[in-house]
């Protein structure tokens, strides 16, 4: 039997990052167990293995595991993934919001559910190929942005249950993507040159409308035609269903409008998509629902930094209100396209403090 604490379960998607994560841990002397999660049914998508999590992902992960001399297993988490990720994804679009399914997967499936299984297999720790760092000091574990700012994935990890942080390892967070590929090449891993996965894993075609049509009841308002209106209510066109829109998206309307129009708001009750000129996209603040903290919640008046979409820099703001139900923030500079459903992640420098889903931007009155 191995020394307790040295056995690590590594989530291997079959991509280069998690392959190298496993390799780094093997080199560090851990007893590594590779796992690929089967998250949804691949038959029926007609698009086998196109993405990282597809069956090709399983095969690639297994080849890498063999190369590294570690065992590899497939865990069927379809039921949990459907319950915690896909159902929420569909619901968010149905109510006119734009979800981040990867956040839900990380908050639930990828770490919590994996850890539950890992514990029964005698694995003290769970690792993944995310570009984030974790510092384990006595008494606390701090989640930090990855060293490679272009690849940093801290935005997607605010929902981790805080009690599991001490058991997590992120071996590639100290590396750049270039270094990761270099390591993979040196080790002769088949995944070394594998392209990035961009799409949502359970929507390999990139067309999520098909999924909504399969999942929502027939003639659900989110997929029924409605009006495109200006903020004053003037109708300027028709749309084929508000679920196809996201705040900040440019909307070509053809004819008559000299300036480009952008989606400002989705009003599901009226099935309306509200559009307006670019300057109307800016909001002075926002409300985040049910915030989740990896450490203590910030107090009212605290100065924080907040990131409101993937790949955007964090911006300074002030906490206006902080309760367990909601967090209201005011930005130092108004921010463009604050999108309901997207994550807002609160940072202190590189450190993730917590986050939540954006409920609504704070709107400025239409100038008279």
């Amino acid at each position, binding site marked *: 039997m191995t020394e307790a604490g040295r056995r690590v379960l590594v989530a291997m998607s079959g991509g280069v990052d998690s392959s190298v994560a496993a390799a780094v841990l093997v080199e560090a002397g851990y007893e590594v167990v590779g796992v*690929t999660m089967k998250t949804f049914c691949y038959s029926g998508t007609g698009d086998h293995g196109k993405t990282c999590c597809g069956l090709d992902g*399983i095969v690639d992960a297994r080849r890498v595991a063999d190369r590294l001399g570690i065992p590899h297993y497939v865990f069927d988490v379809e039921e949990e993934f459907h319950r915690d990720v896909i159902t929420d994804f569909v619901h968010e679009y149905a109510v006119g919001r734009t979800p981040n399914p990867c956040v839900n997967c990380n908050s639930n499936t990828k770490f919590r559910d994996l850890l539950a*299984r890992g514990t029964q297999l*005698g694995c003290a720790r769970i690792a993944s190929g995310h570009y984030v760092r974790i510092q384990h000091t006595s008494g606390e574990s701090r989640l930090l942005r990855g060293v490679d700012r272009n690849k940093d994935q801290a935005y997607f990890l605010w929902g981790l249950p805080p009690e599991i942080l001490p058991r997590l390892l992120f071996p590639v967070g100290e590396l750049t993507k270039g270094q990761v590929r270099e390591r993979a090449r040196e080790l002769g891993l088949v995944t070394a040159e594998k392209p990035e996965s961009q799409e949502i894993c359970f929507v390999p075609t990139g067309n999520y409308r098909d999924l909504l049509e399969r999942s929502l009841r027939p003639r659900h308002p989110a997929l029924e035609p409605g009006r495109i209106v200006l903020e004053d209510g003037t109708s300027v066109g028709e749309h084929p269903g508000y679920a196809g829109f996201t705040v900040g998206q440019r909307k070509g309307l053809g004819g008559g409008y000299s300036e480009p129009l952008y989606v400002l708001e989705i009003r599901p009750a009226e099935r309306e998509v509200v559009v307006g000129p670019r300057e109307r996209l800016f909001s002075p603040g926002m409300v985040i629902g049910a915030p989740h903290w990896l450490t203590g919640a910030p107090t009212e008046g605290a100065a924080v930094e907040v990131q409101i979409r993937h790949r955007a820099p964090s911006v300074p703001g002030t906490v206006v209100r902080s309760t367990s139900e909601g967090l209201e923030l005011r930005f130092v500079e108004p921010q463009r396209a604050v999108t309901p459903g997207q994550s807002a992640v609160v940072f202190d420098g590189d450190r993730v403090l917590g986050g939540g889903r954006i409920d609504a931007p704070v709107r400025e009155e239409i100038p008279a």
Partner: protein
Amino acid sequence: MDPIYLDYAATTPVREEVRSAMDPYLGDVFGNPSSIHRWGRRAQAALEEARSTLAEALGARRREILFVRGGTESDNLAILGRVDADRRAGRPTRVVTTAVEHKAVLDAARAAEADCTVLPVDPGGAVHESALEGALAEGASVLSAMWVNNEVGTVQPMERIVTLAQEYGVPVHTDAVQAVGKIPVHVDRVPVALLSLTGHKLYGPKSAGALFVREGVALAARLHGGSQEGGLRPGTQDVAGAVGLATAVRLAVDEQGEFARTRRALREELEARLRSGIPGLVVHGLEGVRAPHILSIGIPRVDPELLQVSLDMEGLAVSGGSACSSGETSMSHVLEAMLSDGTPPAVVRYSLGRTTSRDDVLRAAEVTLSVVARLTSSARMSGSDVR
């Protein structure tokens, strides 16, 4: 600890005698058996020698043996070939089979575009005789019934099935992949019309299989492109594979009695140790006749997926019903058909090979007991529901 392989029903290594018998045909004697020159003639002689050896081991005639690529192809050719032959002759087409067949049979039966009757089985894995008679009375292109079940090891009463089928003039196909070398298989004593077997379950090469087709049983080809194997399996024959298959079958049949006696004793010891250490353990197929080399059990109160993974992590190679690496852990169709509701979903199939020692079996029992004890107590501690 050295790992223990108890998954011989999944596959076996190629035994030394078989490798040396194959060796010349991977090198110097490389001719195409259809060629007229001396290279071709030598290859053809070896191929036909292998056919004779195989036929003799099964009690068949040389021309009744077709070499094909493995058990799945053999099953497909038997079922689809029978249905197609009837269709071409303008006769009604119908397939009768059982709920505990290998997917190669069930899927072929579905693909045959003929009427299909799937017969229920009792908890011992045997078909219900009244249902069988009812189905046979309607006539069929073929009745396909697996001689020894690959997941549980239960033995169909083939003699009785063939006798009944003959009364109704229905040809019987049997998937004997797990039967040859494990129980007596002789096509004269149990006069089936068609019989499928494969090399890699009995220490022969993978992808080398055969189909016995009794003389006079009409079969239509599924592949086209040559006159090899009587036109029923066109394509240049794999002489080395055929020689390897024939050698492996002959050895397995010669050793069958000894294999069965010794493996059964080991299997019973394994079964007894597991039973005494795991409260509520269910042994599958006890109500029926079981082949000597397979033990399938259900273990209560443990997660099936974690059980499989833990056993492998502790160095014990067994199977969770039937081999599958894609993360499926749902109950197999075989166990669904055989078992009553409420049977534990965590299933382990141990299958013993000719080299399995008493030490292997004792260690396998020990590993299983310790893993089950750990998973049971951690499930209890976390209060988690076992799916």
